[in-house]
């Protein structure tokens, strides 16, 4: 396999793995948020705000990986 082919392959794999990580992380986050707001409906507003902040932070880390994948795909040509 040529270097370009390996780079494209790894870019694709990397993007998929990054999405798995983000999906798992934000899924657990949403589950905890829903359970918390079901136990204490009065805290719904605070829980929702914290959930959005934590989701943005998790997504930030995921996008580090995506940037690496995009770099691989762009520079491999």
């Amino acid at each position: 396999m040529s270097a370009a082919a390996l780079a494209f392959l790894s870019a694709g794999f990397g993007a998929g793995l990054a999405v798995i990580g983000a999906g798992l992380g934000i899924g657990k986050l949403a589950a905890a948020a829903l359970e918390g707001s079901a136990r204490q409906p009065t805290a719904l507003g605070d829980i929702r705000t914290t959930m959005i902040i934590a989701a943005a932070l998790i997504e930030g880390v995921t996008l580090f990986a995506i940037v690496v994948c995009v770099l691989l795909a762009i520079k491999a040509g």
Partner: protein
Amino acid sequence: MTAASLVTIALTLTLGQAHGAETPERPDAAVAHEAHGEGGHGGGLSEVLMHHVTDGHSLEYPGFCQGELAWNCELDLDEVFGTTRDDAGHAVSGPFVVQLGATTLDMTPTKHVIMMWLASLLLLVVLVGSVRRRSVVPRGLYNFFETLVQFVRTEIAIKNIGERDGDRFVPYLVSAFFFILFVNLFGLIPYAATATGNLAVTLALAVFTFLITQYAAIRAMGVGAWLKHLTGGVAVWLWPIMIPVEILGLFTKPFALTVRLFANMLAGHIVILSLLGLIYALNSQWVALGSVPMALGIFLLELFVAFVQAYIFTMLSSLFIGQGLAHHGHDEAHGEHGHAEPGMGSAGHGSHVAGASPGHG
């Protein structure tokens, strides 16, 4: 007309622009695409995509040029600002080209710089225009902006920095919030570009946060105590290991701020353009039936992400400033605890902030 149909029309116009840019009717358009494109895969598709999201030296607008109406007339910024380039694309001379000995510094305003200027101008016009009538009971647009500024002050500045010092940093935090918000939203307008999708812009914003954080920390505890924090409270013989690690830890937070904002803005645009580019990659117009609604969905997500990223940047900036200030006056108490983690530590230190409840985990 509903908002959804307006957005769909806007996306379809973007489609027309992408289509118009792909056919090289004019030689300078083709040269501009070739200068940007690196991989020739999928025809000119990746080049068109890169041309739309990266910085460039030309602005595009629909209008009257070369004697006919066109979807994409180009305004060459090099011509406007008088910069001449050689064949390799390097700037040779012009009022914006600075010669520093052997190297030349090309300061010609590019597309993203023009977009930042336009967004700042819009922000100034809207804010100054809405505060014309000062009254005790605010109305209209003034009311809306006062709500936002109040939100930034109460929920972000005072909650993270504390009541005593929070007001000192509100100007910077409000400026950062509104600037990032307006520049992010500007990128969603057809024919405009997202300046925060440029690593240099987000790096500059993160450097501002970094400088203000260190300035606030040094001002609060003095240079000596700040340097002592860099050693991390370990024995002297561990300093050669600890100090580089702590200095590195000092830079991870601005780095994370940079890449988070940059990648979020860039990824959204690339997804929208890729979805619309599927129509050309699969070479069938029926793909548009599925592709344009999906691109519309991602477009609405991008609207949401624009607000969230501005909020996250401002909130994390205030959190870092608050963590730096939290050591003010508490050094004696902290001496025996030592420091469990490198750098500015986790949000656990935030609980020492006077009068504020730590609502962030």
